[in-house]
């Protein structure tokens, strides 16, 4: 819900309560004021009549019986309320009356003066009508005002919001937002600018750290590998020592590979791969299969490539290469001699199915880091983690399923 709609709702609720309260107060107030005025008029009339009676010593000429009745029998004196029938409207009409006793020509008389009060409903009607009119006017103008406010006053906020939506961590500059006259927006913009400055700095530091860590680790590994390679070249190296040196040499290569894979993973996690472009996936698949030709032949595997339609994906070329490479290498490496390899590419998904060893664990677990089916294997077990990380990066879904019928492993990338 929009902020303005919400505020308007509260305004409306508050105004409704105030309106009810105001209507009641206004009604009571008007009634009282009217009653007071009527009483005053009646008393004025009474004193006038009394003076006239003293002067003339005669009963006044008959007038409208509703306004003045003269009775020779005693009636309770003083101010009071009464209701009389209006002969025209045939309704009960409220009256205020005052009764006093006066002696005319030695005879006592009770005079009752009356004044009609405005009907309650009429008063209520007028009050309600006025209040409603005021309310409508108030709300109409409030809505119009808010519309104007949201368009003009909130414009800097909308600008900041759009800038934030379009903000990418990889961009080297912090977000620069224009100055606004409103303190709150100005503060918001300042906070956002500071936040992006910090983010940019942190991102740069992280990027440099990853690169430096790679550099600092790969350099000693390069020295180790070169020295071991030179040791292996020595003609006088005894055979027993040679196998130890070779084992060391292999371990160094393995460590270096492992480190490269981990660096790649953290680079993907840190979103350090910018510069995606549209790639034809079927071309990449063919290219990768071509590179694996020797290994396919060695295992007598005939790959089946099913292309439903050409598929273009927008990816960083190195990551696309890594994703497809890892999936296919995995399918070849864990395949059995004479096994199957089926690749199915459609605009919805890429599926790689291969024959492999029987799986007793949950295949999805093999997507985790350092998880491998054969624990003794030389590979670090990061290939599928990298594939999964790349999929996550691009919003694809990677799933791994195993079918015991034919012992088929399927890796599926849903775009």
């Amino acid at each position, binding site marked *: 819900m929009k902020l303005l709609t919400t505020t308007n709702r509260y305004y409306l609720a508050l105004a409704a309560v105030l309106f009810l309260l105001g209507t009641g107060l206004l009604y009571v107030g008007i009634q009282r004021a009217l009653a007071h005025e009527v009483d005053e008029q009646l008393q004025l009339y009474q004193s006038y009549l009394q003076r006239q009676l003293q002067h003339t010593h005669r009963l006044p000429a008959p007038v409208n019986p509703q306004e003045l009745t003269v009775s020779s029998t005693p009636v309770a004196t003083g101010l009071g309320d009464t209701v009389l029938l209006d002969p025209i409207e045939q309704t009960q009409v409220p009256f205020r009356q005052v009764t006093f006793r006066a002696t005319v020509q030695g005879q006592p008389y009770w005079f009752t003066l009356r004044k009609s009060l405005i009907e309650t409903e009429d008063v209520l009607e007028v009050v309600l009508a006025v209040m409603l009119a005021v309310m409508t006017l108030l709300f109409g103008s409030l809505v119009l005002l808010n519309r104007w406010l949201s368009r003009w006053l909130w414009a800097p906020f909308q600008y900041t919001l759009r800038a934030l939506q379009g903000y990418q961590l990889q961009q080297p500059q912090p977000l620069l937002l224009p100055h606004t006259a409103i303190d709150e927006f100005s503060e918001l913009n300042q906070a956002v600018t500071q936040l992006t400055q910090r983010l940019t700095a942190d991102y740069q530091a992280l990027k440099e750290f990853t690169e430096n860590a790679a550099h600092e680790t790969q*350099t000693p590994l*390069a*020295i180790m590998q070169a020295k071991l390679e030179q040791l292996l070249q020595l003609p006088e190296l005894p055979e027993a020592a040679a196998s130890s040196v070779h084992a060391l040499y292999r371990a160094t290569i393995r460590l270096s590979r492992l480190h*490269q894979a981990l660096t790649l993973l953290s680079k993907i996690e840190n979103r350090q791969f910018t510069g995606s472009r549209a790639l034809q996936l079927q071309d990449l698949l063919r290219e990768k299969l071509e*590179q694996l030709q020797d290994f396919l032949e060695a295992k007598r595997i005939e790959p089946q490539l099913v292309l439903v339609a050409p598929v273009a994906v927008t990816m960083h070329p190195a990551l696309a290469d890594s994703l497809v490479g890892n999936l296919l290498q995995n399918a070849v490496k864990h395949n059995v001699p004479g096994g199957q390899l089926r690749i199915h590419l459609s605009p919805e998904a890429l599926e790689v199915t291969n024959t492999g060893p029987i799986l007793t664990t949950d295949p999805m677990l093999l997507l985790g880091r350092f998880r491998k089916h054969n624990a003794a294997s030389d590979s670090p077990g990061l290939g599928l983690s990298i594939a999964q990380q790349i999929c996550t990066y691009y919003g694809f879904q990677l799933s791994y399923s195993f079918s015991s019928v034919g012992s088929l492993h399927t890796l599926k990338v849903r775009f």
Partner: protein
Amino acid sequence: MKILIVEDEAPLRASLLEYLRHDGYVCETAENYQQAHEKIKLYQYDCVLIDLTLPDGSGLDLVRTLKQENSVAGVVIISARGSLDDKVEGLELGADDYLQKPFHLAELNARLRSVLRRRQFQGQRHLAFRDLTVFPDQALVLVKDQPVTLTRKEYDLLLFLLANPNRLLTKESIAEHLWGDAADAADSFDFIYTHLKNLRKKLQELGADNYIRTMYGLGYKLETE
């Protein structure tokens, strides 16, 4: 052949120096940007090996200097930073090759030879080794003047061996040179043997016998005699 090795890590510099000198190259070394800069300004080299991260500067600036001077020297970048940007930038600046640390010395040697071969002027653009003659431009291999038909991988393997004669080539370096990352798809190095066996047989049929020696499980060596 004169080569300048720019590398700040002393042990690695020593290994490169020893390996390349053994192959008959005249080598000089520089351990920082300043030294390297002076040397490339003063002398002519056939090839310069440049480490990108130097204590007092960037190797990329050395590549820029070489290109500004219109140097004829080939440039091979060796870097520990696996950053793709560095590689792209290095090659765009005009470097001939880019090798990521750690690397196999045999691989560096093969790349160096290929850079030097490409940089040499017209003329004798062939490799000769005992009874073997290879014309890399035409991918033609002759044994005692008889052409041999090799598969792509057999040919690449032969060139790799020829770049490193009389040296042990480990199976790991052969796998990486010939297949790169795709070698991960194999569960053992047996596949190298298949290709080597075929290459040996083809050479043997034309009388080039006992050229490639198997080194007890480690790898292979191209024998000079």
